[in-house]
């Protein structure tokens, strides 16, 4: 169920009314859990059982961790995470792995008929398995108490605003909220409505319009000239931000309507002056998850520069693979890993040499431009169907290969201006300054008017959110 759809609007309205009609915390939790499973079943009811299995695994591990002593605790943790990763690996990577093995064997001249199963990828599996892992690890680390109620664990893992594409909410962050009755607060509702509106404008109006520019070109890369490919690349650079930030805003806003706070997922990432900063602003729930559950256990920043770079590369390669079972995602992760390592080495060099870069001065602009060009380059690999196609696009855009073809309207300047407007006004928190009386009137009538305008400016047929495929 797409957040920008009539079906979701009806679903949300019904669940909202029922939720706030219930007086008891337990009833509300049960209601939201059932609603979340209904939300998931609309896509494919059979995979509800898979989600239930992952939930049962996390619940059982939590209970066992509460009852076992130290040496066994690690075994329970490893077994639970192993089951989650095996589930994720089977559904997401089995065919990828086998097809690559078959290709490698074919290169060696060995004809092998491997059992490729063409497995359907369950929507949101990458997210709910990470939620389950987060719960078990947080219980293991003592950051959260083992939850005796299966319903509450099921609710945490399946809560529909974050079920399909995050944000990845830590168990230690959300479980305390689940355990207490959420009061109805007009202020929270207001924040929820505003976040929903922002997400709606981002996704329905801007991202889907940008998709109209990027999609036709990336669908037939061979038919367009270098300028069209550059325009499409910039369009996708904007589209994925507005799409995913829009989705996240709607998810966080929806959760707020039910009284739950989610951590922010985006903080104007295209202002980042380094790849390190980019990952502190982009898909923050994933990058912090990878940091805490993968990068730090690998060794984190401890040790020499090479050791740290190794950890960064492993983290980003796995992060890339997490997005999709294809080599272009691995390359995308590798490019970000290289960017993180380059930034690490740059800072180390700055410390060792008597160089002083004033990052608040003109250098900042150059750093932002360099970082964003690198991010844009990486997005080409993310967007293309294969690493080979992405390499072709990059070569053509850089003028390394002549590529006659059709052109498109030169709108790249407008796209960058839109990103600039959003990042400048949003990040700097510029607000119209009015008297409290007029500020209130403008704030709320503005919300209504913007919603009306957004409805008129959105395409009727909406594209699914990009991150729904992961």
């Amino acid at each position, binding site marked *: 169920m797409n957040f920008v759809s009539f079906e979701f609007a009806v679903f949300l309205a019904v669940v909202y009314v029922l939720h706030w009609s219930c007086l008891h915390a337990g009833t509300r939790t049960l209601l939201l859990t059932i609603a979340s499973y209904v939300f998931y079943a609309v896509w494919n009811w059979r995979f509800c059982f898979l989600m239930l299995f992952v939930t049962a695994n996390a619940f059982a591990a939590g209970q066992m961790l509460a009852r076992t002593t130290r040496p066994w605790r690690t075994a329970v943790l490893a077994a639970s995470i192993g089951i989650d990763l095996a589930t994720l690996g089977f559904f997401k990577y089995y065919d990828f792995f086998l097809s690559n093995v078959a290709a490698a064997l074919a290169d060696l001249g060995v004809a092998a008929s491997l059992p490729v199963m063409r497995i359907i990828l369950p929507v949101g599996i990458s997210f709910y398995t990470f939620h389950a892992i987060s719960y078990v690890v947080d219980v293991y680390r003592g950051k959260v108490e083992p939850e005796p109620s299966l319903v509450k664990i099921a609710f945490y893992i399946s809560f529909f605003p974050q079920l399909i594409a995050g944000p990845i909410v830590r168990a230690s962050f959300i479980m305390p909220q689940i355990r207490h009755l959420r009061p109805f607060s007009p202020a929270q509702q207001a924040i929820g409505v505003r976040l929903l509106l922002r997400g709606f404008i981002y996704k329905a109006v801007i991202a889907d319009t940008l998709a109209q520019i990027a999609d036709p070109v990336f669908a037939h890369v061979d038919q367009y000239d270098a300028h069209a490919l550059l325009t499409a690349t910039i369009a996708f650079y904007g589209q994925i931000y507005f799409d995913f930030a829009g989705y996240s805003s709607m998810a966080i806003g929806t959760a707020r309507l039910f009284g739950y706070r989610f951590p922010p997922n985006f903080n104007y990432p295209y202002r980042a002056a380094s790849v390190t900063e980019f990952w502190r602003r982009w898909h923050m729930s994933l990058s912090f998850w990878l940091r805490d559950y993968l990068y730090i256990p690998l060794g984190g920043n401890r040790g020499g520069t090479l050791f740290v770079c190794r950890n960064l590369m492993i983290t980003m390669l796995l992060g890339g693979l997490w997005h999709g079972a294809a080599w272009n995602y691995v390359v995308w992760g590798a490019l970000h890993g290289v960017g993180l390592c380059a930034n690490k080495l740059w800072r180390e060099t700055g410390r060792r040499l008597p160089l002083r870069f004033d990052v608040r001065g003109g250098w900042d602009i150059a750093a932002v431009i360099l970082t964003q060009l690198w991010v844009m380059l990486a997005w080409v690999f993310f967007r293309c169907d294969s690493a080979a196609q992405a390499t072709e696009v990059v070569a053509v855009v850089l003028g390394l290969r002549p590529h006659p073809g059709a052109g498109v309207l030169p709108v790249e300047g407008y796209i960058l201006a839109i990103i600039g407007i959003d990042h400048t006004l949003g990040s700097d928190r510029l*607000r119209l300054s009015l008297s409290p009386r007029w500020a209130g009137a403008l704030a709320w009538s503005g919300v209504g008017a913007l919603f009306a305008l957004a409805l008129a400016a959105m395409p009727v047929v909406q594209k699914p959110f990009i991150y729904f495929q992961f």
Partner: protein
Amino acid sequence: MFRYADNAELQGKEHPEWGSGRTGPGLPMSTLACLLLGAAMAGLYHLLPRTRPGRPFRALLLALGGFIVAQVGLSATIAGLGLVPKGPFYDLLQQLTDYDGERPVVLLIGSSFSEAGIDPVVLAEALASSGRAAAVQRLAVGGAPHLERLHYLKEYLARANRKPRLVLFEIAGGYDSGPLYQVHQMRFSDRMVAMMDGSSAWWALCWLSDADGLSLFQRFTLGSEILGQLALHISHIGFLWNSTPARETVTTYDSGGSPPPARFSDDDTAELLEQAAATRDLKPDWPPDVPTPWMSAFLAEEIAILQRHGVERFAFYSVPSLQGANVAYAHRFCAAITKFACIIGEDPDLLAELRHGADWYDFDHLQGAAREVFTRWLGDRLVETGVWP
């Protein structure tokens, strides 16, 4: 799931998954306009003051007020700029309503059956050759349910320089028996949202309340879709994306392409025609009442609207079909509609000329030379029966 028109999903030419594939690689300026509008909205959103809703009810009223004021502003802008939704019907309306000649107008209203089977130029020639010259206009689009046809008929009547003197209605069992099938198939597409005004929604809900054989869940689903599309129509959803000045030639609408043709041999065609002629039964899921009470009321309304615009002559016709149920339906329909002339495309002489596989695009759509054959035959019948005196 619902009663359906014959191969209706193939006639629709606009698939819900594809929507109306309206923006090709050419990137029209409307893309840029919507992009800039989106940027302005994002900017305004950031600039709006953040206040706590001291009195939630007041905040709600203010938001509602802002929504309504913006809707009124949008309506005024749309009217001021003379914008209309892009789509196959507006392309047609543009051509039809411009006619301002001396010849009286004959208007055909139908679906892809008529679109494929009748050539307006040939029909005009056929009528002229009998000394009864007419300007023939065909208001027929693939997959158009009755509700959509009536919606655009009203637009046509409001804009046409010359009102029709004779109106011919297509008879098609599938469309008459399941008037919401196409609406459901193309739900939430540009076309369905554009036509779902209050009147269309009313007729749709009337059918829903009367229809037999629908479960409560089906009624709820369809009813929700209708009301949802009505809400979207009223709120101008997607309008700025898919509109164009009314007087501008529209060539950018991409209907999504035609379904693949069925390929018949000459022997198959002859056999299917014989089977069709022998069939007397309707499809099992079509209602036995022909026309249904809903269809009778709808036709009465359509005719009343036309009469208010000075139209006095009406008739019905069916296009030849390889499906016997369609022919049987046309017979029953004509038997029930005694007030108006009815022409069924199953004359043996006519069918003898349509026995080649190449004459049929699929079971219900003519193509090639067959189109001209049927059109001339229809012209002759209109004159012979005195429908076009």
